[in-house]
């Protein structure tokens, strides 16, 4: 059977769904094809163990663009973001450092560790606020290519230039420092308290095979503050029902404008005829025609597997081959019979409702990276944990809990490769690490799900298990994401577009790539 659509979106991850929703909203006939049995990609909630629901992969809503929440009216379609109000860093000596959203509470706690840091924190926050404001307009911009002579590109470049000039020299210089320094070096300029520096610098390494002392990681510190700019939107938090409910809400919005979403529909290849994409062929052989094809799959899978090298210019193929994935993180999901009791917080308390970060010092993180650099998972990894059942009781049976643990580093290219035994050894390292701070953890585990980069690649189709569809490192961001000729959501194949995190501005459950791609497509269609 042959049917025709204005656009086919390959992959029902959150960006694919966002793109489909915007296209459908503009009156296009859209079909989303998802390989798995449910939509969401890495933003899914699954009942992994009876009665316990998990955000299996991505686990917080980070930077979901407020304009998407607004324009797609996601709250009406079921999105409810609950605030994460603190970050707790337990320490080996039985103490802890907590960072709170409340100004007074935060100052009081930081002053306990360093009076200087308590004061510097506010100034740092304001500086980051200014810098985030400076950078934020770039998120919604299709990145102009400075090497192009196309008048549209030049216009975009002129706008970008005007924006940067408008920053003034002090902020421009600060931006240059942020773009080039390591997060640890940058934070050394501000703070003396080790757990504070480590916990902050951790945001610069997530999803990237780099350590806090690797140059170029400072830039990612800004991401957190971009979220704060949209503070009232609570763009940073925990989605009620887990991250799957973000995808469900976007899918519901897309359907409300008539988009068709098919699951269990794996695309084998993109049909290319005369240099144009004309549709897709499913794995079961079904052919579906469309005027345009939009791929939410990552650049490697899209071009090297679904399109095929023979349809592409050689230099572009080389660039896509060069594009770095290097998945470096894993996930452990625990079903718990009781709350973990942290030695540093014997009475429990509000701090357990926020993020819990195992990042006692910059050296701890850098050592964790050292192991990954040489092909081993970290014996004592950086962990970012949340206990969603404390925020949304529906995630677990009454009195029981779920714990979501993001783990770095777990290199995709593990020495000897990932096997079932290595996966369990990795899970043991994670549980052992937490148990050093919360001794009752081991005996309270009812079920354990361990996810390695190899699992992420196999389950979700993300190459090398990279959660951002490619590292967020400077050489592959902005007009270089994923490659010079393929930025701005277009590709060397006419009518084939990219809409995933492998395009500007990249990863996180942000949706910006999907929205920007839809705008690029609609601009062209108009």
């Amino acid at each position, binding site marked *: 059977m042959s049917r025709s659509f204005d656009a086919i979106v390959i992959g029902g991850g959150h960006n694919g769904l966002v793109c489909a929703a915007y296209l459908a909203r503009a009156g296009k006939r859209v079909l989303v094809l998802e390989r798995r049995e449910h939509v969401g990609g890495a933003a899914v909630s699954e009942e992994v163990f009876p009665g316990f629901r998990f955000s299996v992969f991505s686990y917080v809503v980070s930077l979901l663009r407020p304009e998407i929440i607004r324009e797609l009216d996601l709250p009406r379609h079921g999105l409810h973001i609950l605030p994460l109000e603190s970050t707790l860093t337990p320490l080996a000596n039985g103490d802890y450092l907590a960072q709170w959203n409340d100004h*007074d*509470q935060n*100052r*009081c706690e930081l002053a306990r560790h360093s*009076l*200087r840091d*308590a*004061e*510097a924190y*506010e*100034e740092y926050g*304001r500086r980051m*606020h*200014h810098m985030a404001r400076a950078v934020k307009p770039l998120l919604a911009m299709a990145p102009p290519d400075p090497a192009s002579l196309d008048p549209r590109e030049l216009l975009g470049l002129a706008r970008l230039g005007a924006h940067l000039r408008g920053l003034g020299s002090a902020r421009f210089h600060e931006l240059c420092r942020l773009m080039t320094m390591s997060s640890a070096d940058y934070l050394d300029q501000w703070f003396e308290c080790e757990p504070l520096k480590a916990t902050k610098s951790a945001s610069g390494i997530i999803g990237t095979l780099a350590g806090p002392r690797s140059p170029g990681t400072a830039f990612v510190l800004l991401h957190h503050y971009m979220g704060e700019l949209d503070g009232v939107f609570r763009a940073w938090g925990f989605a009620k029902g887990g991250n799957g409910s973000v995808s469900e809400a976007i899918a519901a919005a897309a359907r409300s404008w008539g988009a068709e979403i098919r699951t269990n529909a794996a695309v084998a290849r993109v049909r290319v005829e005369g240099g144009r994409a004309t549709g897709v062929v499913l794995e079961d052989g079904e052919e579906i025609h469309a005027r345009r094809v939009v791929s939410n799959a990552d650049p490697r899978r899209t071009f090297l597997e679904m399109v095929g090298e023979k349809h592409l210019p050689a230099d572009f193929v080389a660039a896509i081959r060069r594009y770095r994935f290097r998945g470096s993180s894993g996930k452990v999901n625990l079903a718990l019979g009781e709350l973990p009791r942290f030695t540093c917080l014997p009475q429990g308390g509000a701090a357990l409702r926020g993020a819990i970060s195992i990042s006692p010092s910059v050296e701890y993180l850098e050592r964790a990276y050292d192991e990954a650099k040489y092909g081993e998972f970290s014996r004592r990894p950086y962990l970012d944990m949340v206990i969603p059942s404390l925020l949304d009781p529906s995630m677990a049976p009454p009195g029981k809990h779920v714990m979501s643990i993001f783990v770095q580093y777990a290199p995709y290219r593990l020495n000897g490769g990932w096997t079932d035994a290595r996966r369990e050894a990795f899970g043991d390292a994670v549980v052992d690490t937490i148990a050093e701070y919360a001794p009752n953890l081991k005996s309270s585990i009812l079920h354990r799900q361990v996810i390695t980069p190899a699992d992420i690649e196999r389950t979700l189709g993300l190459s090398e298990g990279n959660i951002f569809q490619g590292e967020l490192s400077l050489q592959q961001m902005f007009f270089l994401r994923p490659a010079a000729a393929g930025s701005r959501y277009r590709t060397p194949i006419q009518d084939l577009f990219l809409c995933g995190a492998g395009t500007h501005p990249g990863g996180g459950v942000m949706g910006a790539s999907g929205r920007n791609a839809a705008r690029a497509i609609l601009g062209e269609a108009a």
Partner: protein
Amino acid sequence: MLKTTPFHPRIAALCKSHAWRRWAGYVVASSYELSHEREYHAIRVAAALFDISPLYKYLVRGKDAARLLDRVVTRDVVRASIGQVLYTPWCDGSGKVLDDGTVARLDESTFRMTSADPGLRWLEENALGLEVAIEDVSESTAALALQGPNARAILQQVSESDLAGLKYFRLVPARLRGVPVTISRTGYTGDLGYEIWLDAAHALELWDALIDAGAGHGITPAGMLALDLARIEAGLMLIDVDYVSARKALIESQKSSPFELGLGWAVDLRKERFVGRTALAEEARRGPQWQFVGLEVDWNSLEHLYAELGLAPQLPGVAWRMSAPAYAGGEQAGYATSGGWSPLLKRYIALAHLQSRWAAAGTLVEMEVTVEHRRKRATARVVPRPFFDPERKRA
């Protein structure tokens, strides 16, 4: 969590209103009784006792202590005499106000600085190369303000030394019923009053002594609502309400220079060097674009706006803190930032920023007021600050 001051056990027992608010990370009483009115009147007819412990306090000691503070603040600290207290703003390098507070010279090489915002980092950054030790004593030093016409009599009752000679903006070490303190003749009410600084360990002892000695003089623990009205009457500005610290301003136009805040008298350009001097010298030459003035809302005009709707004028009994546009000559001349009904003066007063050309005393402007959900403009006259300035304040 929020901190409590060293006086909290006494205050919590007295705070019948359960009306609390935050001040610098501490929980403090808005009012003790259900209404703040009696507490307000105590400031003007008896003596009100305020817990001002949440102020940030720094001890600056050493050979270069005077040099450091002289470098940071706009007033001349080097020439301050021992026992003198300076009220002063301090600025960033562009001459925009970061904070305002006091610098007290305890002896030749020891100073206590108070500030509304944390200032340790700023002091340390400016102390590079100087021989000076800076200690944050915010938590270890408790502070009370005793304000009102009976303040002196009460203090004298518990003091082992004679306080009659203590002049306005001077301080003296003393013992109050055996508790070692320093007493400064300073305050935030524009009345006769004192501030008492002591080791937090003796806080309750001193509180009890004052309450005991003051009983016959009408001593009244008072909260922030009463203080807010009194400080407006005194024409005293409040950071975060009447001006934005240059440290917190998000855009340039939110910042103010000392001249724009009516603090030109506190800028000593004879000093060779201090933070912001170049910009301030230039501004002094040019004249400031803004002035910080008193406004007195015309009663008849206000009454008329309400009468049009068949209402009697409704007056703000609690001081307001918002931004009310002020108009003159067909343009927005500025904005008022705090105001309220003065029960003492029986006038509706406000503190306002006006562009200099509209800021001369006697100028008539219009201040926006909301009357029955509608924006109206009431006539207001620019008047000198302070609105209330009793002789006893300095006598």
